[in-house]
């Protein structure tokens, strides 16, 4: 049954970016306000799921030519790499470092290696959620 859901598709296109921006906001704000890699990742994949519902598996795959399983490994690599990086500076495993920098556009901002770890979490959560949904969706 082919239905004409042009309204849904149009709205989805717009809402997708709103959700993504919100997710990125949650991710970046994690260290100071509620949010973080986990919720951010879930919401990002929620945005992609919205596209999946509006269009179909093939279209979305064309839009995001990513194998989400690779995203999982990339995320794990980020997390472990951040944790293990501290060993290079002769401090115990999982020691984070941060400092405040004067950045051109943002002004005085703190940069924190915990962010990199959280990025790993973010990528893993997207990868996991999308892998599960894609796999189940494609199965007969």
């Amino acid at each position, binding site marked *: 049954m082919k239905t004409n859901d042009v309204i849904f598709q149009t709205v989805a296109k717009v809402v997708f970016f709103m959700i993504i921006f919100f997710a990125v906001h949650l991710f970046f704000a994690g260290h100071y306000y509620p949010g973080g890699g986990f919720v951010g990742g*879930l919401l990002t994949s929620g945005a992609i799921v919205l596209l999946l519902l509006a269009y179909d598996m093939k279209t979305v795959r064309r839009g995001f030519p990513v194998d989400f399983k690779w995203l999982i490994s990339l995320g794990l690599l980020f997390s472990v790499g951040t944790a293990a990086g501290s060993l290079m500076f002769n401090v115990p495993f999982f020691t984070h470092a941060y400092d405040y920098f004067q950045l051109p556009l943002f002004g005085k901002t703190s940069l924190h290696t*915990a962010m990199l770890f959280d990025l790993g979490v973010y990528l893993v959560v997207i990868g996991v959620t999308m892998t599960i949904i894609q796999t189940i969706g494609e199965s007969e």
Partner: protein
Amino acid sequence: MSLLHWAVLAPFIMAVFVPVLRKKAALIHTGWFVLILPIVLFGTFLQYLPVTMNNNTVMQTAPWIPSLGIDFTVYMDGLSLLFALLITGIGALVVLYSIYYLSKTKESLHHFYVYLLMFMGAMLGVVLSDNVITLYMFWEFTSISSFLLIAYWYDRDRSRYGALKSMLVTVFGGLIMLGGFLVLSIMGNTFSIRELAARAPELNEHPLFLLAMILVLLGAFTKSAQFPFYIWLPDAMEAPTPVSAYLHSATMVKAGIYLVARFSPIFAFSGYWFWIVGAVGLFTMVWASFNAVKQTDLKSILAFSTVSQLGLIMSLLGIGAASLHFETLDDNIFTAAVIAAVFHLINHATFKGSLFMVVGIIDHETGTRDIRKLGGLMSFMPITFTLSVIGAFSMAGLPPFNGFLSKEMFFLSMVQLIELNLFNIETWAILFPVLAWVGSVFTFIYSMIIVFNVFTGKFQPEKIEKKPQEAPIGMLISPIVLASLVVVFGLFPNLLSYSLIQPAAAAIVPSIIPAGEQLDVHISFWHGITAELLMTIGVIAAGILLFKFMPKWGRVYDHFPGKVTLNQFYNSGLYAAERGSNAITNAYMTGFIRSYLVYIFTFFIAALGFTMWAKDAFRYDASAAAPIGLYEVCLIVVLLAATLTILMAKSRLTSIISLGAVGYTVSLFFVIFRAPDLALTQLVIETVSTALFLLCFYHLPKLSRHEEKRRFQAGNAIIAAGVGVIVTLLGISAHSSKFFPSINEYYVENTYEKAGGENMVNVILVDFRGFDTLFEISVLSVAALGIYGLIKLRLEKGGETNENE
């Protein structure tokens, strides 16, 4: 590692080369190579004879597990030397005999000699070890190699049955013995037998003494085939005859005797030792000799006879323990019992070994061992006949063979018991010589059966397969050597008395020998007309009469019900154990997850409930509780309603929706308890999982999609209520008993100071306790890959994997 260590290990090392020899030198019978070793070892051990004759000992230690006090300590005294000489001497003769007995082409000789050498090494280890753990190790080696040897013809049903039986019985005893050893070593704080013996008086007072003694004795009784553990020995007769001759007459069954003798210095002060060892031995002797008469298979007769003779030796060792209690007597007659035990041990090894070999020859030359088929072989096999006469007459206790002497000494010891009022023995003492006499009469009868039913009477050529003829000379050498020893020891017993018997007896009862003196061992052939001589004459007279009229009274045996034998008991016991464990397992391993959950939850309730009750752990303290607000009450009402809906719902869809309602309510709880991160995550996750539940629901198979209400089951309800109550009580108690302040102050203070963040939850997750998060994302990854694998790599019906990508 001294020479003695290498002597013990040599058979094991030799065993490694046997298969190579079998393959590389296939034209020569492998036994010839093996034969060298026991001869060399026999010579080696003979060199120790002067040492032990002067009551000196040799002790060498090689560390094995020094941190645990377990060493490979070899200890050579008269008793060990006697056994070592028996093992290697008879071992050499048995190997020689087996060269002619076993065919070079038909049999897998490498198996045979590997097992035999393993056994020889293990026996040497048993008799030479001073450390109980090492002793136990070699002890189990003998069980294993004996198991392998009994099942040598493993394609026969009876062989496997016999091997399994002997394994079960002897390993059962071996493990019990290990327990005894451990108890003993805990009492004495050492693993060394010599050191334990030195502490014997102190050990005697120990409350665990009796336990250790009974455990060690059980081990000895199972190995030495005492009542009621003798049942494995007749079935072990399925082994090749050289094995029966070696293991089941001369060596392995004497390991238990050795153990009793070796531990006499430790245990023999106890009256229990005297009673248990003496009575069990004597009863075994009578019982087995009585049963031997009814057997029709020659090897079975010899098996029962072995049991009987071992019982005799055992009872002598038990009675010899009385000597420790009467050290004030001038003429300590009970040492005579110990001497008789040692003497009979030697005698039994010689005549029983030769008798087994004779039976092997008869089997080899006629093709049967059934005495109902044999008869009149005297003229065909004169040498074999002579050998069997010597062996059997010695076993019956007739002069001029060595069995006569030890039987006389046996009677003497038994008669002496009457004269002493000892351990409240009183009038019961008369039973000992009477039983001994009855046992000897039966011994006489079966000895005569072996000789006369086989070699005299009518020759029945139609019943036997081959034409009987004299055995090849090689096969006869070994029994001839043994039979000559029977005669030599019979005529000149004092050859042995100070060379072997005295040192061995001194090792068994060391405490009664004054320093610098020796036991008086003088075995006289003729010592006047005494009670024991009259008893022997009585044995001969009664034996001849009973043997003559055997057909008349032999029917007595038919009246023994076959159902109540020990074998029947063993078989039905095994069967019942198997059936029983099967039934028990089937009863609780139902295969339903529901049952297992019932067990788990019941245990959970019982364990927690009992602990809470026994430790009086329930606390209720409302002072730390926060006030309950309106929002909380409302949410709880919603939560309860949703939960009840899940339970009562008729449709699964309702349950799924209600579960979603529960999840969203929980996230609302997070909101009012001020946990925004949790609330966010809970909302999203609840949505995803509800979607997944709906997916599952959609794909349910049509057949079982009955929309029916859950059946109420009282058991389930009780367990569920129990779990709920227990967990609630636990929660209340835990909340009411806070002993330390929380550590959250640290996080509150340092989140910004040290970690540069303001969201404390997130800082804890990625910084303070980032480790947990690292592995939680790993869990998620594994779950995703698992789902991917399950769906993509499904096995198709044809059994092939379906790899889409």
